[in-house]
């Protein structure tokens, strides 16, 4: 994977369009949307309901197929009137961290396993994956709940595990895919703190 080009914005979206459905019921959600975000810049996406915030994030996260346009992330072309990666699931796993509106942890895995599953899916060994999970549990201050089942965790503890999961594979991008309404006041700072720490000293694979 090429390293990020310093001269290019971290996120570059050009003339992105997205139409849901076709014919009479087609909805044009994005029409020539363009956006630039510099590395390290913190950007919030605001807009009334139905203004396609989620749609844009889903396109950036390689979850939804755009209908046209271009997406470049750190000098890599992700989409140019078609995806440039055939295995988008692997792309998401390796390079993009997602944080959802709700934690959506896997209920039959404990806190540590929910994080370790990411490196394991990538093919890393069990020991290494657990070490990474423990490191993140420490960073997020929930190490003491490491072997708790998900339903035994408080809402914020769950959200912390979800953040740890998002960061597990050292993603190059991290999308909080929506406003997280249930967060207590400290949680956004946990995320910001994590991102800052992560930005300042990324652990390279």
């Amino acid at each position, binding site marked *: 994977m090429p390293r990020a080009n310093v001269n290019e914005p971290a996120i570059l979206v050009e003339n992105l369009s997205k139409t849901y459905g076709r014919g009479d019921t087609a909805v044009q959600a994005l029409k020539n949307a363009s956006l630039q975000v510099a590395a390290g810049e913190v950007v919030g996406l605001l807009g009334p309901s139905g203004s396609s915030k*989620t749609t844009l*994030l*889903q396109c950036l996260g390689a*979850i*939804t197929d755009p209908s046209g346009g271009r997406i470049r992330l750190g000098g890599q072309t992700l989409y140019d009137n078609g995806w440039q990666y055939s295995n988008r*699931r*692997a792309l*998401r*796993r*390796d390079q993009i961290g*997602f944080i*959802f*509106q*709700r934690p*959506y942890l*896997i*209920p039959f895995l404990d806190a540590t396993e929910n994080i370790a*599953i*990411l490196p394991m*899916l*990538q093919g890393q060994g069990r020991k290494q994956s657990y070490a990474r999970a423990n490191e993140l549990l420490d960073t997020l201050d929930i190490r003491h709940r490491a072997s708790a089942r998900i339903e035994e965790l408080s809402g914020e503890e769950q959200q912390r595990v979800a953040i740890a*999961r998002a960061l597990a594979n050292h993603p190059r991008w991290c999308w909080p*895919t*929506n406003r997280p309404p249930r967060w207590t006041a400290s949680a956004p700072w946990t995320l910001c703190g994590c991102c800052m720490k992560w930005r300042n000293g990324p652990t390279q694979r």
Partner: protein
Amino acid sequence: MTQTKLKEIAVLKLIGTPDRLIARMILIEAVGLGLIGFLTGKLAVSYWAPLFPKHVVMLPEDTLRALAITLVICILASVAGIRAALWVPPGSAIGG
């Protein structure tokens, strides 16, 4: 497949779990549940049957046949589950 289940599967897909692994998880779960059900039934029959006045003769072959039928039903049921799971779009995990 319940809605919550499908959401969990969407999350698994979203974080990069391959379809193969998702299918295997569903299959193992279905067969596991079937086996638990079968054992419970078997134990219930062995312990409670003597308490009932009328008896049905169960030969060992019948038990094996019942086990086979249970497993087939579980596998068929999980095929339906797997189809639903493979169809669910990863984006449905996000909502809003």
